[in-house]
């Protein structure tokens, strides 16, 4: 467990250093994710050693968003008089975005499968 945590934090740290060093507009952890994928390509046996701890982390991913969620309640005043309009917009826009992504994914998958078949 400690080795896995150390490796995850190490990748994040390298990611943060690179992002800051080159003033990139991506988050350090996202670059850390890419680093870990490259590491797994180099050392495929690493996957099974990381799996027990990572499985626990990802099974409890929702838990990690609770502090930020509580922050929303304390800060609802920023929505001011636009609260209802913003909720309607967020719901419509989120569903539209999911529809666009899922429709494109399935449409393009059908096209490429026909192309290669």
């Amino acid at each position, binding site marked *: 467990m400690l080795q896995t*945590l150390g490796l*995850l*934090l190490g*990748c994040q740290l390298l990611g943060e250093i690179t992002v800051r060093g080159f003033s990139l*507009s*991506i*988050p*350090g*952890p*996202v670059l*850390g*994710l*890419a680093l*870990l994928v490259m590491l*797994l390509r180099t050392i495929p046996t690493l*996957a099974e050693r*990381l799996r027990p701890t*990572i499985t626990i*982390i*990802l099974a409890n*991913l*929702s*838990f*990690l*968003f*609770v*502090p*930020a*969620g*509580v*922050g*929303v309640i*304390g*800060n*609802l005043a*920023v929505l001011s008089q*636009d609260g209802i*309009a*913003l*909720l*309607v*917009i*967020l719901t419509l*826009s*989120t*569903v*539209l*975005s*999911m*529809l*666009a*992504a*899922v*429709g*494109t*994914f*399935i449409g*393009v*998958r059908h096209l*490429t499968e026909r192309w290669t078949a």
Partner: protein
Amino acid sequence: MTDVASLWSYLATTPLIWLTTTILAYLVADGVAQRFGNPPWANPVLMSVLLIAPMLWLTQTEYATYFEGAQFIHFLLGPATVALALPLWDNRDTIKTSVAPILLALIAGSLVAAGSAILLARAFGLQMEVLLSLAPKSTTAPVALGISEAIGGIPALTAVLVILTGIIGAVTVTPVMNMLRITDWRARGFAVGVAAHGIGTARAFQVNPVAGAYAGIAMALNALLTSLIVPLLVRWLV
């Protein structure tokens, strides 16, 4: 024996009480969700927040005080994001064969997420600052805050809108996809990752491991794309 007031004044100064409260609230929320088979309406993030918020209110605790305890949990979002490398690695073979659907669905989902938010905000006649705070709402919080600041939005408002978007995506994805009879877990997961970042990804992992892996890819790629397209869309649509 010390009285309750002095015990409270001691507890209130340590991170222990709110850290414990957050864990217990989540265990209760997740227990309820699992008891009902993880239905979309029983979102564990939302339920935990609804359990903790009244306690903060009753004890007159400031969010900053709460966060002194909760920061230890919040901090783990970083390594958890890195951890998404493993499901991505596990699914590398199917990912290699779906590069075109992934990239095009990313562009479509990301454009519609930001574009529809801007157009709807205009239709509702919202103020410019609010519109600009809304535009990056579908991407992960640190990226969204950076974009909001750069284009003239209000980062504090964006922070709230990002979390609300995540919860809305996590609650709506299952009924929407079921209604459309979409059975491809890759497509379902990818869609919620693009539209509703990490909270959507957490929901995807709750439902199906392949959906979770694709949601993670979508979230990571959208963190890259949103910072490119939101400033452009703002220029065209505002």
